[in-house]
């Protein structure tokens, strides 16, 4: 396996009034293609910041985040948009689906943004919804789904453009045990099928125990 994305002596700090508080200092690590990395640590230790840096949503104050040989911090706006659309997928604790749209439309969104034709996007979205066992809910509005179902929609959405890296921020933090198991089973199965690298920020030891590697902060 080759390196997909790496942190090279990355430091990041937040402003708190007149002071700066460092949350990450000279952090270096590598994520291989298809690797499952779990990040754990107490609140405020910088877990979500690492995800933001990996997604290119924040730029490190020193050091570099390198994706396939190119510094993410140097991406232009269009390159970053392409990166977020095609290379990286994100799963959030609170799902962040668009409530006015149907399940199918939510799943199709990244493909449509990426310029895929509506028919192709629809076909692929239906396949993914079948994978997450939500085929019967394709026309339902998001608000009518349970938390577990919404997260499965988010998982289907994240895979539609076959990203090489999935970043998940406490994806089961808002779910009960049954839903957690189901969501993680689906996420891991689909990741393996697609050969996608997965970075999960979690407090859940069961989830971190499934990971190939663990980053404790």
């Amino acid at each position, binding site marked *: 396996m080759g390196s997909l994305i790496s942190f090279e002596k990355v430091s990041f700090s937040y402003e708190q009034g007149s002071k700066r508080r460092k949350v990450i200092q000279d952090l270096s690590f590598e994520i291989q293609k298809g690797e499952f990395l779990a990040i754990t640590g107490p609140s405020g230790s*910088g877990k979500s*910041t690492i995800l933001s840096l990996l997604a290119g949503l924040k730029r490190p104050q020193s050091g570099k985040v390198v994706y396939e040989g190119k510094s993410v911090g140097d991406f232009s706006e269009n390159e970053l948009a392409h990166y977020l659309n095609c290379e990286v997928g*994100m799963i959030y604790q*609170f799902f*962040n689906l668009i409530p006015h749209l149907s399940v199918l439309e939510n799943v199709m969104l990244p493909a449509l*943004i990426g310029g895929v034709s509506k028919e192709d996007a629809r076909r692929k979205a239906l396949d993914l919804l079948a994978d997450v066992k939500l085929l019967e809910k394709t026309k339902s509005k998001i608000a009518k789904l349970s938390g577990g179902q919404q997260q499965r929609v988010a998982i289907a*959405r994240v895979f539609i453009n076959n990203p090489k890296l999935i970043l998940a921020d406490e994806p089961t933090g808002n779910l009960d045990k049954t839903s957690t198991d189901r969501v993680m089973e689906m996420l891991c199965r689909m990741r393996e099928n697609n050969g996608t690298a997965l970075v999960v920020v979690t407090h859940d030891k069961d989830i971190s125990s499934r990971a190939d590697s663990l980053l404790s902060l």
Partner: protein
Amino acid sequence: MSPLFFLRENLKLVFKHSAIPIFLVLATIVLVVYSLSFPSYLAMKQASAQMPPWSATVDFESKNRSELNALREDLSTEFAPVEIVNSCRTEALVSADKRSLNEANEAPQVLTEALLLEDFDKKHFPADVYIPADYVISGNPYDGEGLLLEAALAQDLGVKAGDSIYVGLKYPHGSDEAQNVLIPGMSPDEADSYAIDVVYREIKVSALVKQGSFVDGIALLQPKESVAALEDEICTSVTELFLFGPSQDKIMNTWRRIQHSSNMEGVYLTPASETYQYHQKEFMRENGGVKTFVGVIIVGSAIAFLLLVLDGLWKQQKLMHAFAVLVALGAPKKKLIVSQVVSALFVYGVLILIGCFAGSCLSRIAYPIWIPSEIKQMVFAAAGLIVLGAVLCQSIVLALRVKRLDIAQSFFGETE
């Protein structure tokens, strides 16, 4: 995908929260009706007061009532849609005259006090009044006819029906009529050197005539003349038709065609002076409403503008989450902004267009007047500018919001 997405979402919001859009459409209708109709109405009055562009008067030198009615019918058929209206002056003259004339014929003859007589004239011409020939509308005392005089002169004379006056009628110096004037005790050469070209005779004031608020008149006719004769006399003298049409061109064309029509000899055109005075007064009165009009339009437009901006910002707020999700999914920010701006422009454009269309239709009912296309263009351009301005404001706010949009903070809930 983005424009359609935002368009759909904006339309959904319009239908879901329709209070502001409905108010906006209603406000647009009111504004359009008012801003189309009032300037047009005022412009019509103003134009009428200056030189009526769409009305004209046709005077006939030799037409009596029956001929006039027949002519009016012919013209109405031939020159539609130009409206041809009988002069109310003629109608009123005659109707007022009947009673006066009857009274005058029964009243004893009394001489009035001389008003304009000067010493020299008294010596040679013992007339009570000297009247410039120009003031005579009809008649020639030299030929033994009665006279029809202008109103102002009748008032100056202070005569009333039944009075009998000696009238000295002055002809222009050197005219044919003046050459034939015989002055008692003077040769024609001597008379000419006095530059007095007068015919005088005793004439009974047969009737005072009055026409609405426009024209007063005095008829100085020989006794024994009948009402019917007077009617014909007046019709022959002052017959006129008013033409009203949708445009100056149409009126002018009708004018020319009447002039060149072979069977309508004796037709000539004059400015509609009474119409002019009437419209001028009306215009002066209506002109007072301009400030109110401007105030209403400015305040109304400002309210419409603010509503558009506030509604747009509210919609943005509603769509901001979707906006952030789309950015996180890789949609370019600039494209999203353009999509939102285009869809907002479309939605507001449609709303305003509905308002403009309905307002335009209603204005025809509210004020059935001809609205110049320039005013229409101006009103629609103003409506377009308001929409563009409001959407521009929204775009600036949206661009600032997007610039400050922190996806990491929004979605990862970072507070570190």
